[in-house]
């Protein structure tokens, strides 16, 4: 039997603020396969980002479990979690989060450098070519448009060929044309590299290109639609 790449089993997340409990996720279960694109949709505050954090092994569920490649994230220590993120997960953020001091190529190369991977530069060039920004390799982030910056961020997220790509509102800060380009790249990541892509979005276009749409409300999954 093939295990899902990413699986949440009755995962709940409760935050304590000023002595009050706030349940951000309530017994969410979800299994994602290789090469799939899943869109998380729902209003602000419905628990999308919390779910992404659990899925990206950046946070742990208060109850329930999250499995990545068949291993429960809660069972991993700090070093194992770091290794997991380095090897298996790529992140794309709404505000790009490129380092202003590094060139485009260096930004893309960064995850491989942090993991001390050989031939980092070649891999970074390949990914930059994939997003169509080879000519901007030596430019700095402030010299790029918003759409270009997000494409660089996608190249960075895919540079180490992760099994899972997690994108939080990747088009939230872009115009329509740039947004379409970014969504195309995420779809391509799943199709070409077999990545499992999980996108939190408000955008109907983003939701439309997904192979599965997960509707959330008040920390729960209220509907799942498959394309």
């Amino acid at each position, binding site marked *: 039997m093939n295990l899902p790449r990413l699986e949440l089993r009755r995962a709940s997340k409760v935050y304590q603020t000023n002595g009050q409990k706030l349940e951000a996720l309530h017994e969410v279960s979800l299994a994602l396969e290789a090469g799939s694109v899943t869109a998380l949709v729902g209003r602000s505050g419905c628990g999308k*980002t919390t779910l992404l*954090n659990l899925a*990206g092994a*950046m*946070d742990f569920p208060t109850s329930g479990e999250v499995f990545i490649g068949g291993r429960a994230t809660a069972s991993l220590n*700090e*070093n194992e979690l*770091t*290794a997991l*993120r*380095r*090897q298996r997960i790529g*992140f794309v*953020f709404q*505000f790009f*989060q490129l*380092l*202003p*001091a*590094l060139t485009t190529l*260096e930004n893309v190369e*960064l*995850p491989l*450098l*942090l*993991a*001390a991977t050989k031939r980092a530069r070649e891999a970074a060039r390949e990914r930059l070519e994939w997003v169509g920004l080879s000519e901007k390799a030596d430019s700095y*982030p*402030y010299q790029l448009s918003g759409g270009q910056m997000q494409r660089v961020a996608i190249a*960075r997220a895919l540079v*180490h060929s992760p099994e899972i790509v997690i994108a939080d509102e990747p088009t939230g800060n872009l115009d329509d044309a740039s947004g379409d380009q970014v969504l195309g790249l995420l779809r391509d990541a799943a199709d070409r590299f077999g990545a499992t892509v999980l996108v939190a979005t408000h955008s109907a276009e983003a939701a439309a290109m997904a192979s599965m749409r997960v509707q959330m409300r008040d920390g729960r999954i209220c509907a799942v639609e498959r394309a």
Partner: protein
Amino acid sequence: MLPLPLFRTLILRPLRRDLLRTALTILAVALGVGVVIAIDLAGDAATGSFRSSLETLVGKTDLDIVANGAIEERWMRPLTALPVNARFAPVIETQGVIEGAGSVTVYGVDFITQAVNSHARSVATQDLDTSAIVSSALAKRMNVREGDSFSLALSDQPCKFRVASLVDSNETEFVLLDIATAQQVLNQYGKLDRIDVFVSPGEDFTRVEREIRSILPASYRIEMPGTRSDENQRMLRAFRWNLRVLSYISLVVGAFLIYNTISVSVVRRRPEIGVLRALGASRSCVFWLFMGEALLLGAAGSVAGIALGRVMAASAVSLIADTVNALYVSSRPAAITIGIPEVVTALVTGTVVAFISSLLPARESMEVTPVEAMGRGAHEHHARMHARRDLVWAILIGAIAWPVSKAGPVAGNPIAGYGATLLAIVAMALAAPAMIVGMSALTRNVAQLFFGPEGLLAVRGLAASLARSSIIVAALATAIAMMASVAIMVGSFRETVIVWLDTQLRADLYVRPAGRAGAGEHPALPAEAPALAASIPGVEAVDTFCAMEIEYQGQRASLGAGDAAIVRRYGRLRFLPGEDRDAVLRSLPGQDRVIVSEPFANKHGVQVGSVLELPLGDRTVRVVVAGIYYDYSTERGWVIFDRSTLLKYLPNQAPTNLAVYLRKSADGSQVRHALEQRLAKYRVVVAPNRSLRRNAVTVFDRTFAITYALEGVAIVVAMLGAANSLLALVLDRRREFGMLRYLGAAPSQIRRMILLEAGFLGVAANMLGLALGFALSLVLIYVINKQSFGWTIQFHPPLALLSGASTLVLAATVIAGIFPARAAARLNPIEVIHEE
């Protein structure tokens, strides 16, 4: 107008939130202000006790009669016969040594005819030669009471005295003897150190002065009380002025810190400023919000600085007193008193520095437009764009500093030298951004090769946070530059002195009276000492030297007389270039010719061939300057006669020092032992050449200890600044660190990255600081020092010390990065990445 509610929410609240950074800034200002206050307080205490402690006993004198080389007592008779309503009191003032209590001031006053007060009158006539009046402070320290006996060594021999009476004298310590006893013990028959004049109420002051002047020789001086004290203070002016300037370094470094704190504040609150402006806040309102923050930090730092200054002054006072005693004049440290002027100075200093250093960032806050909410990237991009322009300014200002340093002194002060120093620091600060950008570009590959991705991120991070990192580098570089320049100056001076000691001290043994040997004190040896020394087998020659303090052109100087023939034969006295040592020394005996030291020549504008008019005893002598020699023993300067010439004008001058030259075949320790035995009944010290040199170097090192202490504080302030700024840098870039964690960076990698950044900052600051330090050391040695003290110092940079100190600074910078690095590694990536 500063709106208080806004100030509370926009300024006070963040200050409270970032309590550690606020505390670091206040502490740095407090240290800067504290050092300034400490040096002032300690300087006052160390030099403030020149006023004769006799005044506490006999009341204020109206006039003092003094002369170079003592006053003849025979002038007392015509003075007392003058038709004026005034009292004349002869005084002997010297230093004595009390077993267990050390050196004390001893006065000889007339117990019988001059009824100084009831204490003196209480001494029975038959007990005059064994009685002493002791100040209560001294008696307490000696643990003696009325009727007890104690041993006091004056000049060369210990004498027993009985405490006839104790006098309350606040904190001052002294012993009072009858003048005849003092003259007898000191072998100063018929000689007085001064005559105090007390003018009766109602008497015409100027008439008294005129009458006195009419009978006394022209070489005698009639001084107003306090003249000597003023003179001492004047003499110490350059020393204290230089010390004060040195104490301002910490304040300058602190100014960088305030600049940084306020600019961090402005950059962080750009969005809020934009909103405020959109809601109708005026530019000046925004400006005063940030100025208010700076003034608050300045005032808080100043208040803390007063307390800190008082504590530091207690440690500094003995160091300064040592220097004053070694180089200038004998004084006893007085109590440290902190008054309204010091408090006001501290408050004004701290707030003015805060005001000036925050002007630029506060002005920047005014420029934020309502629609602007500029992020760090764009702000830093602007900083990078300005780096090249700033470099051009740096070159221009540096080029101006060079000719400025060449200008002469203003009213004896090396103002231009200080100006050039300040300009050089400004030039360095402006060059810092370009230096960091250049270093970042050049070391990129190397840093990555040696330190991995953390190395690359660290060097690039410095260039990315240029506005911030260049301030840290400038502050650290200023402290390093001052440390390096002073270390080079002191090291060069030390090396010069060692070489000079080698040329100056050529005799095998030196004999001087025991007891304190401070500057301006020349206790006499027994008159028979030279003959006794010369009679010891193995002794080839004895140079009899006698020294005294004189006044020349209103300034204190030292006058000495030795045997020019012996100096010519054995010594290696170095004269200024172009002078024939042998010919100069040969021309001195029996002639009205002298040699003068370089500081004396510089101070009085004297050249070879100049004629000096020296008041000696009751006549004024005209002597020709035959040569100028290098000397580093005292800043006041020497005038040296051949002994035969001096005795012509001041007969019976007792020797003060002997330089004993041994035969080649003689055993040095045997001769020394014999000499000590022969002079055993006198209180003298026989020092071999080597120990004298060692002592001189020890005195030198002690003298400059205070400068190292001051530099240490400046470095500490810079370290606080580095820690503070690195912390600000971490807070500013927290999202970057969060993102790196998302990309797979381990917390240890983040920590390493910050430590590497701190290290690179330290390297950049060291490079800039050492380069500037070398330049400033040239200004210190060839401009400031020369104009202040008149010494020629050979350039000898202490490379080992400098490399040690810069390694220490580098290590300290990395240590300053430990806390910020830990803070960065502990950031919660989820929290920081979703802040928007």
